[in-house]
């Protein structure tokens, strides 16, 4: 990481001013909503539901395939 010159420092200060202004949600709102989203989606996650793997395109079904 190099030392910043004056132009780069001005740019960094301007960028930090913008970044300070963004709206921030309380974690007591965003975290439970994130957890809820994940838990609802888990029912559709193939890595967590082995019955979804019954039709596994990467496993030979035993029949010959015409390429």
């Amino acid at each position: 990481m190099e030392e910043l010159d004056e132009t780069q420092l001005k740019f960094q200060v301007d960028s930090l001013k913008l970044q300070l202004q963004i709206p921030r949600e309380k974690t007591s709102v965003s975290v439970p909503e994130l957890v809820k989203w994940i838990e609802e989606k888990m029912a559709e996650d193939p890595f967590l539901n082995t019955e979804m793997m019954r039709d596994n395109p990467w496993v030979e079904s035993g029949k010959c395939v015409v390429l």
Partner: protein
Amino acid sequence: MGEMEQLRKEAESLKDEITAARKAVQDATLQDTVSGTVVVSRVQLKTRKTLRGHLAKIYAMHWSTDSKLCVSASQDGKLIVWDSYTTNKVNAIPLKSSWVMTCSYAPSGNMVACGGLDNMCSIYNLKAKDGNVKVMRELAAHTGYLSCCRFLSDAEIITSSGDCTCVLWDIETGTQKTVFAGHTGDCMSLAVPLDFKTFISGACDFTAKLWDIREGQCRQTFSGHESDINAIAFFPNGNAVITGSDDATCKLYDLRADQELITYQDSSIMCGVTSIAPSLSGRLILAGYDDFNCNIWDSLKAERVGVLAGHDNRVSCIGVTADGMACCTGSWDSFLKIWN
């Protein structure tokens, strides 16, 4: 006080204000919120296919949106498009420069892109009328290596570079539309969410940045890592970001609360994270490491719940299909493996 000293003080003061603003909204932690949640049971994924054909280290892979085809890049100087179901090579594209570090599949399936130490991003048309895959555009302007590239559409692509910038390109004209400057170290990785309005980058300055594509500005900067961030991905719902670093940890950052939620680490893991991808629901995080393995983490409980062991060298890249049905790992051992 000199101008520079004044600016430095102002920057530090703004950083302190951002830290305070983050603390002010930190009225709950992920750990507390999931204290009653049970860890997922052990996840055991098996290798279903091994894609053989590259003759040297694989540096990158990317799934097509059809969850069947994928593209890989190797320093044997080839891009290979694979039909992962049959392991057949759909295209084997010889590259002008063999020092490739990244590749990407366009969402349409019509193009692939790659780049590396040639400092360029080369776009290849897979659907040319004569059936030959040729270079369509060479996007040149970066003054450092191309570490990552991701298509927004057939008309636009974003690149990250060792020159510390990311660039949005117009593929048709081959020109830079926007330069995203701000990182103070090599940009190593980038990721685009489903709405294509923002993107995130991870760099050797140990930070991850969220950028507004149209405004061309950095909206948020995430610190915490103690070394280079090599890998970055969006959480499936677009509201969180996961990173993987040379500091041997992965982190989850909440975009809405603008802060780190949790770190995925274990005292037994001492090597760098090279690649990262969430499962469809985000409950599992798959991360590739320098020690030849891939660890599967329970994203909510921050515990390791599985391992993908099978490569004989560093896992350099990982990707989960859009339908969540499989994961692909690419390695310096020259093989790609499909797991589910």
